[in-house]
């Protein structure tokens, strides 16, 4: 009888600890596929992903300019900034638009990154539950 009581007590403690999150740190989500769509009115000359706010030491991910309405894809993880290069207007100088805060890869299945004229939209896409 005493052994049964100890067993029940240990089980209750284990359940209580489990409910309080004492099962250790959650590992960050791994790399996720990201679809990048140019929804701006401009052709994008360069696309850079970088961890620091400074984009100057990052590489251009585009092999060719990304036309309005076109898409490209990549794999991202963790926190990052995104920068695109485009003409300010036809015939004007090229400007760089950098997200004014870092975007984060969460535990969604995949992401869409929409590039607008003067902003970015980060859209997590979760797997559709199946029965």
């Amino acid at each position, binding site marked *: 009888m005493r052994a049964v009581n100890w067993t029940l007590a240990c089980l209750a403690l284990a359940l209580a600890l489990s409910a309080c999150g004492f099962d250790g740190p959650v590992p960050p989500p791994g790399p996720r596929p990201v679809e990048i769509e140019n929804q701006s009115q401009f052709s994008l000359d360069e696309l850079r992903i970088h961890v620091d706010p400074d984009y100057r030491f990052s590489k251009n991910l585009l092999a060719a300019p990304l036309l309005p309405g076109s898409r490209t894809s990549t794999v991202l993880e963790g926190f990052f900034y995104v920068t695109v290069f485009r003409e300010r207007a036809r*015939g004007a100088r090229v400007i760089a638009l950098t997200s004014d805060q870092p*975007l984060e890869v969460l535990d969604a299945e995949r992401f869409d990154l929409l590039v*607008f004229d*003067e902003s970015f939209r980060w859209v997590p896409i979760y797997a559709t539950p199946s029965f």
Partner: protein
Amino acid sequence: MSAPSGKRLLQVGPLALLLGVGCATPRLAVPNLMDARAPTRTSTFALSLERVTITNLDADDDRRKLVPLRATLEAHLMASGAELIPEVQSSTAWPSLSVHLRPEVENHRTYVLDVLSVLPGLGLFPLTPEWGTASVEAVLRLRFESGHVEERTVRGAADYSHVFYAWHRDDARLEALARAYNLAFSRVTELVRAALERPDTSQRPAMAQAPPEWLGTESEAGFRVIARPVDAAPEPGLLRRYLGSLGGLEGAITGGAARVTSSARTEAGEERVGEGNAVTSGFRLAFFRPPSRTGFFFPPLLGFFSQDIDISGFVDAVPVHQVPGAVTVGARVTDPETFTSVDLSQPLSYALRLRSGYLGQGIGLNLVLGTDDVQLFGTLRFGLNLLEVRHTDVSLETKRELGWSAAFVSSGQLGAQAGLTFPDLHLSLRVAAELEYFRSFSYPDPLEFQAATVFNPVKEVYERERVFVDGAEVSTINWQVSATYVF
């Protein structure tokens, strides 16, 4: 047929009134008998005044005035010593005289001010000047006792004008007609007396005819519409004549403003997407001749237009719109070459250098009112550029594009001035303004502007549509206040 509507009457009425101007111009006026000169000769001569006829009368002329008009001619003849033989005693025993009269009236109006006077809402606009010349041609046929006939034609004229309410007045016109009749009658009388005082004419041919004699035009006095230069006498000396041809030396304070706008059709409709303004001010010295007479003029236009001006888009905020289930962030904008910030809220700005050489036709109207001592003048001038060769130079940052184009009937100008002239003081003062307008001054390549911010429901984002504009409307206004020393 239905009755014309009130609106239709308002449209047609002024035109009908203007077309009707001058249709009813009486030409019969009786000079004051006191104008007949008092007898200066003691000798007298007998004369039978036979027929006095008149043509070219208006339907509105009062034929009852013909009797006093003949009486005036008789008074002139008697004042010069003629003893008129009553018609019942007329025979070949005395020289006889027949006179044929032909009065004419030439009149002018500004039309522009007449339209103002008949437009509804302006009431009885008083300044509706009319001016012109009344003239009388007299053909006298003098038959001597010998059967010899002499025929002479003389023509006299007098200026007249109505400054205010000319539609409702004819006093100055009738007074000018009376002066023209007097001029003609005086000369007829002189010719008759001179002919009758000559020695025997029996050896002369049966008929003698002399070329018409022009007696000149009597000017008006006092405040009037000045239709002829007051001082038309040429200046003595070559230098004075040369300086006189230049008019005078004018010193002016000048100012001006230019405006350029570009519009485009966007999803929201026709929208002005760019504009620019520039102002100028300064002084100017130039030769200027104040208008000296009333009337229309038709200057050819051959000129060059030059305007440097910036055209910019408009500032409009582009809010960041959040949607559920996503994160939307704004952008920090930098110049990749210098890594310095770029303010996207500052609109695009293009530097335009617009040039146009043009050829066209103008029409102008000078109105000069006043006396011999002080004259008030006003001018309204309109010009249409029929042919233009344009050069456009557009710069955006370090990029520059140039282009030539031709334009037909795409621009014009409207000018006005008002001033005062004091001939005795050699002084003229004026204010003047001129508006120039160029429709669609083409760019070498379409320029990009941004339309106003709108919400795109498909993207769920605020954005400014990119629009490309082919050309710009350019307008300038220049004004000046000046004083002129008239040579």
